[in-house]
């Protein structure tokens, strides 16, 4: 759809971020109109999708107006000025609540913006609101949200993935063209894959964690979700870069991801298929679409080989030791003393009792499980065998990547072993839930860059499948380059984006449009 056709409100919500930005900059449409169109869309569908925990209508329109004023004054606008965005409720916002999907922070208003939040605002991006997520980013389905799950726009009875499920659903439901998620074990890529959109986990440290409520400090990575590879790259550039407030942030220029997304050429590129991840572990349709994607890459001029990464299969175990360990410490601060929920303070109970009653009431089961698991793994006597060993395994996984990247330029695998499973299917089986992260976890452990792009629908259920492309740390642009090539070729094959094959959502008022 060309920018010039930007007319009706529903058309505006079908535009990409790049198209919106161009239209706003050219004066063809106002940022306020664009924002209003998206706010209307949210009203129309979010009762079913439940992507948002908080919609900041007034604030969003004010931000949009500011962009329009700048434009009218002839000032230079940034590449995403006036584009609406959905922000995962794990990033602090001074003018909106930040709940992290938890009861323990219900209604909490931080007194400061996250660096990513500030960078978005400075760039003229219009934050529509905060999206739903698994509590404190722990989960793969948003079923761990204390505020109810989000629903996959492809099939509302299914999960939209997690933990950035709200962000992914919002983009797939056309409630926003852009969203921010965070990826710790796969929480951007897996939701993107099961919702049929693009999700990128930058190199660890590529985007600032200042203001990102910590789950696992050495793994958490903020990143973009969008309907196109180019849109994701544009957001990646705006949100990334060194931050002196984050000691772990990368002190190097942001890789040229936008240029790479525009280039999308893989001829001569060496592509490695991870042996350990292309066996029988995946759903049939997922494996089939993945195999086709690999063949597609070959047809585009890439050289494909199999690469063994023998320690990748220990990734799940290492991750479910390291992440809970760090989170057991990171979540200790929720103790009812300075902010958040306080339960049981009847003037006779002690501080310890109030802490325990509050955390019991305020945390959900998955959070409690991981806190206890982490406490166990760090306990004296167990540290070496569990946390210590897991950190060694992590080094070995990184070494596997290093060795692989001597032979190939990128590694590929399916993003997640299955398509979107039904809501409720795995909620009582933590281990089954953890398996969703099998393929995404290694890149979190090693900290390198990885993107998920749609590569088709599984024939058995008609649900989206994602292709994961992994690049070396700091070579984020390479992931975008390959992603863009795949996207272009497949969209040509499909006659349009994959998302166009999803059924239209019923709008409030009963009409389907």
């Amino acid at each position, binding site marked *: 759809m060309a920018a010039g056709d930007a007319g009706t409100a529903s058309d505006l919500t079908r535009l990409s971020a790049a198209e919106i930005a161009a239209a706003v900059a050219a004066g063809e449409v106002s940022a306020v109109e664009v924002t209003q169109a998206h706010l209307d869309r949210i009203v129309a569908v979010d009762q079913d999708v439940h992507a948002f925990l908080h919609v900041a209508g007034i604030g969003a329109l004010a931000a949009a107006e500011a962009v329009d004023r700048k434009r009218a004054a002839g000032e230079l606008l940034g590449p995403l000025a006036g584009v609406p965005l959905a922000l995962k409720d794990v990033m602090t916002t001074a003018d909106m609540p930040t709940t992290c999907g938890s009861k323990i922070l219900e209604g909490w208003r931080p007194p400061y913006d996250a660096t990513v939040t500030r960078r978005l605002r400075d760039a003229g991006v219009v934050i529509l609101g905060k999206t739903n997520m698994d509590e404190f980013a722990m989960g793969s389905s948003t079923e761990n949200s204390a505020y109810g799950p989000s629903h996959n726009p492809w099939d509302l009875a299914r999960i939209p993935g997690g933990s950035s499920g709200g962000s992914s659903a919002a983009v797939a439901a056309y409630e926003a063209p852009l969203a921010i998620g965070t990826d710790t074990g796969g929480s951007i890529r897996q939701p993107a894959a099961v919702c049929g959109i693009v999700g990128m986990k930058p190199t660890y440290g590529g985007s600032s964690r200042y203001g990102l409520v910590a789950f696992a400090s050495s793994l958490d990575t903020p990143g973009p979700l969008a309907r196109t590879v180019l849109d994701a790259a544009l957001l990646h550039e705006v949100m990334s870069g060194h931050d002196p407030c984050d000691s*772990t942030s990368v002190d190097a220029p942001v890789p040229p991801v936008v240029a790479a997304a525009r280039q999308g050429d893989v001829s001569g590129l060496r592509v490695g298929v991870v042996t350990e991840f292309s066996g029988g572990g995946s759903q049939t349709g997922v494996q089939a679409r993945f195999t086709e994607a690999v063949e597609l890459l070959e047809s585009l001029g890439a050289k494909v080989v199999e690469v063994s990464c023998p320690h990748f299969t220990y990734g799940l175990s290492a991750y479910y030791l390291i992440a809970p360990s760090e989170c057991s410490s990171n979540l200790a601060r929720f103790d009812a003393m300075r902010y958040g929920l306080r339960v049981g303070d009847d003037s006779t109970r002690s501080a310890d009792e109030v802490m325990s009653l509050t955390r019991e009431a305020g945390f959900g089961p998955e959070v409690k499980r991981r806190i206890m698991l982490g406490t166990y793994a760090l306990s004296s006597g167990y540290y070496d065998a569990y946390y210590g060993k897991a950190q060694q395994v992590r080094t070995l996984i990184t070494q596997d990547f290093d060795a692989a990247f001597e032979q190939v330029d990128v590694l590929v695998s399916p993003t997640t072993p299955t398509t979107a499973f039904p809501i409720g299917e795995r909620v009582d089986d933590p281990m089954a839930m953890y398996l969703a992260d099998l393929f995404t976890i290694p890149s979190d452990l090693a900290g390198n860059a990885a993107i998920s792009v749609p590569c088709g629908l599984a024939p058995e259920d008609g649900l989206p499948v994602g292709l994961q492309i992994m690049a070396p740390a700091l070579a984020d642009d390479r992931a975008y380059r390959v992603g863009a090539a795949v996207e272009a070729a497949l969209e040509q094959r499909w006659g349009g984006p994959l998302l166009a094959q999803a059924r239209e959502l019923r709008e409030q008022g009963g009409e389907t449009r």
Partner: protein
Amino acid sequence: MTDLAQLVPYDEALSRYEPVIGLETHVELGTTTKMFCGCPTTFGLEPNSAVCPVCLGLPGSLPVANRAAIEYTIRIGLALNCSVATWCRFARKNYFYPDMPKDFQISQYDEPLCTDGWLDVVVEGRTVRVGIERVHLEEDTGKSLHMGGATGRIHGAEYSLVDYNRAGIPLVEVVTKPVAGTGALAPDVARTYVTELRDLLRSLGVSDVRMEEGSLRCDVNTSLAPHGAAEWGTRTETKNVNSLRSVERAVRFEIERQAAVLDAGQKVVQETRHFHEDNGSTTAGRSKEEAQDYRYFPEPDLVPVAPDRDWVEQIRASLPELPAARRTRLLAEWGLSDLEMTQLQNAGALDLIGATVAAGASAADARKWWMGELARHANATGTELADLPISATEVARVNALVKAGTINDKLARQVLDGVLAGEGDPDAVVAARGLAIVSDDAALTEAVDAAIAASPDIVAKIRDGKTAAVGALVGGVMKATRGRADANRARELILERLS
């Protein structure tokens, strides 16, 4: 809540047992800002007015290490003859407590910044080398006011009020190796070590080291073992030791208490004890259900600290003259005795003497004034010598006036009183109070004649040849002139008069 401890008299305890002591000292660094954020470290600000998301531990906040704090820590380590790590990390010490914003403290665990040094202390002429195990860096906690109880302490309080201004201030922890073989001198060694350490830190300019303000905190470990035992005894840790004197008293008390426990055939409980200022005793802290497991792991939000050797050498080159070296030098320069030097040091008077000498007085004279009259003033008003409202220059001036004969020692005391009372500088006080010695013959003659007239019997003695009696008449002249007569001249005049 005091368990009435049995005690064995000190000397008796030492006749049977050998003490081993250890000290853990926390030093609040005098950096401008906190350890991990840019909040000010100023003391005494309005509650919760020097906090930010980082030191308040708000969700999403992240620490960034203060370079100056690292440098100060290396300074301390070098001054204590430690090795400086080439690579080390911060670690999280995890435990729940309301004054801890994150419910973990960023500290160092098995990778301290400095290790393996020593500090020599001299006690009763004997040099004891106190080994330094480690010097590491961590962050301070908030401060609680305990409300509703009778004593303001935790026990019996109904609730607490927390101020996080102090949370995040850089704290250096200096841990000694166990110090054995000091016998009866153990309490003294402990006290002298803390004094030396305090002076060292002050000379490095890294902290104002005021124990009463909490910028220098001490925990003392004490254990006893029977003479000739192969192993050391179980040690206790005593906290709330807030002054140099308390350090000494705490060790002494623990020795006496532990001796009684061991005499009774019981085991000393390994525990944390609390020192009581009012009666010099220690009592057991509330026993915890289980021993604390801090679940240390490397701090993932910070990157390793790897001070390059050039930086370390730069810091080493910038170290000032350390107290021990300075003392040796001054000892030679000032010609005072060892004992006199030690007294000066214990009183924290070295700088004052030095400044007074620089202003023209001799070391002996400077010492006389500061350790005599001025020390009396300080004790009477409960202040430190350095805090008295009189400068070294003023003291040197008073001394100069005495040397010149303008005033005598007795008058000088009145001059000092005047300066301390804020009446002005020494010359102004002399003038205002009319304290100059009267050596003008005319005025003196009057007083001499009056004294002679008043004591005919003494005059008779003098005329008889008992010249020693002149002293009494001189006394009379001094009294008449309110101490301002030139005593020697008065004596001369008297003798002239009577001859």
